[in-house]
């Protein structure tokens, strides 16, 4: 990139934008030029929104969901069942559960999964307060809802060990055939998992 020919302010913005997920140097340059082509008010509004974001939006001190105050609206909601805790990888997963309307307990957002290759160990996850929360809440069941790939499974196994001292019941969400899915289109790995995890007909 011939970015050295660009004014320093532009170069700085490009390098900051290029740190965003999915954005490379080329896209970052395009975004920066777009901003430059817009009325000045756009840049002021954008930078204001960014400042407001970091000043007003935090992560919930309990479950690490986004929150405007110290705690998120879910942890503050008195109608939620406080005895079950669902552990998810990210906020997107939490929102998926919320959309389903099938879960009424509390959450714990890890903000990642264990992945030694990427340098993510237990210290990089939001785990430090999990055992304390379980004891404080008197949680009766922890549902581990990480994905079923190697990292998600290893994280679930780690949580099982990590939570053993609390004596809490730890369960894993089921994997298998999607609802409304036609069996013939389900891949063999999923099908064999579904077969192993079969339940009695009642």
């Amino acid at each position, binding site marked *: 990139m011939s970015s050295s020919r660009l004014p320093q302010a532009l170069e700085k913005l490009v390098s900051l934008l290029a740190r965003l997920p999915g954005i490379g140097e080329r896209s970052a340059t395009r975004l920066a030029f777009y901003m430059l082509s817009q009325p000045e008010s756009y840049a002021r509004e954008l930078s204001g929104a960014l400042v407001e974001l970091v000043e007003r939006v935090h992560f919930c001190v309990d479950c690490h969901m986004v929150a405007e105050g110290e705690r998120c609206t879910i942890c503050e909601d008195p109608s939620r069942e406080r005895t079950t805790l669902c552990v998810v990888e990210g906020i997107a997963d939490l929102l998926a559960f919320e959309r389903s309307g099938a879960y009424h307990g509390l959450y714990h957002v890890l903000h990642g999964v*264990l*992945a*030694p*290759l990427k340098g993510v*160990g*237990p210290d990089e996850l939001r785990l430090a307060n999990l055992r304390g929360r379980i004891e404080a809440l008197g949680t009766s069941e922890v549902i581990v809802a990480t994905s079923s*790939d*190697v*990292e998600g*499974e*290893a*994280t679930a*196994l*780690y949580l099982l*060990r*990590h939570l053993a001292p609390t004596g809490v019941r730890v369960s894993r969400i089921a994997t298998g055939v999607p609802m409304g899915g036609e069996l013939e289109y389900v*891949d*063999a*790995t999923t099908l064999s998992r579904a077969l192993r995890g079969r339940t009695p007909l009642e």
Partner: protein
Amino acid sequence: MQLLALEAERLRNLAPLRLEPHPRFNVFEGDNGQGKTNVLEAIYLLATLRSFREARARNLVCWGESDAWVRGEIERRGIRRKMGVELAKTGKRAAIDGRVVDRLSEYFGHLHVVVFGPEDLVLTKGAPVNRRRFLDRAIFNLHPSYLDEMRAFVTALKHRNELLRASAGRGVDRALLASFDEELIRRGGRVLWRRTRFVSDFLPVVRAVFDDVTAGAHAIGVDYESLAGLAADADEDACTELYRQRLSEATPSDLRQRRTTQGPHTDDLAFSLDGFPARVHASQGQHRAMALALKIAELQLADSVLGGPPLLLLDDVSSELDRGRNAQLMAHLSRAAGQIFVTTTDRRWIAVDGETQVFRVEAGRVLPEP
């Protein structure tokens, strides 16, 4: 299984290609560098979405062009399908009957090929990784979901090795290691089971084919070398439990060496010739015959499992075998069923009776001879 028509554009040095292959023997004759092997690459790409010589299929695009495509019409069990692959800058796209597949894994299962060429000599002569790759690809051809299973094992292995590597000087988080151990054991158990099942069907066929191609002049031995104590009829749970035991025994040593020493990633196929290890005792010609026996056995096994023989692609095979073995190979192929594509510099090598279409390959043009 039969390839009825093949078309390709901008693939390597090939001029726009249109051909209707013969249901049995197709011989592509031409001097070196004219594009014979690229015809086989087109067929291989159509079947596997990969190249058999290049690490990246993208490298098959003609130099200076931005994209290439291959299309074919196939017949399998009386059903005709159109298949197509496009190599573009943005990636690969594959279509069946005009519909682009969302996931490449949906594409597989319609057209199967087995390829044998000069580079396959590493199968018996080279390092074990070549034989593992052969096993994995052969299993994948029969069970497409094996690809994801194998990848998951490799991911678990890399994570565990990273934990062992990073443990230098500061010890290892036992709970963390145990979590990835368990994933490694489960994913590895699945791979071991797939391989165990495959070799128990496959190795007897390899021995029989080798006897046939060499007219029984030498006794070949071939064994699957894996975890100590792995039974030939172990089921998935038995494979998993054995791996659990071997991994746990090896963990102190793994921590010292900072790598995983036990598992499917160290498997091998061990060949012997008249009771001696083939790697050091076999001649060049004997290595060729063994590698070829592996490929033909793969073909025969696929024939019985898939209900029809895959296409056989033989790249420049005759120059790799001496005259006697070549005659036996041709006799063997004439007896076996299936559609065969052979490249050669001299058609006199291809001693098969009738049922043959010769194509002349010159400067990227492929022309059928009357």
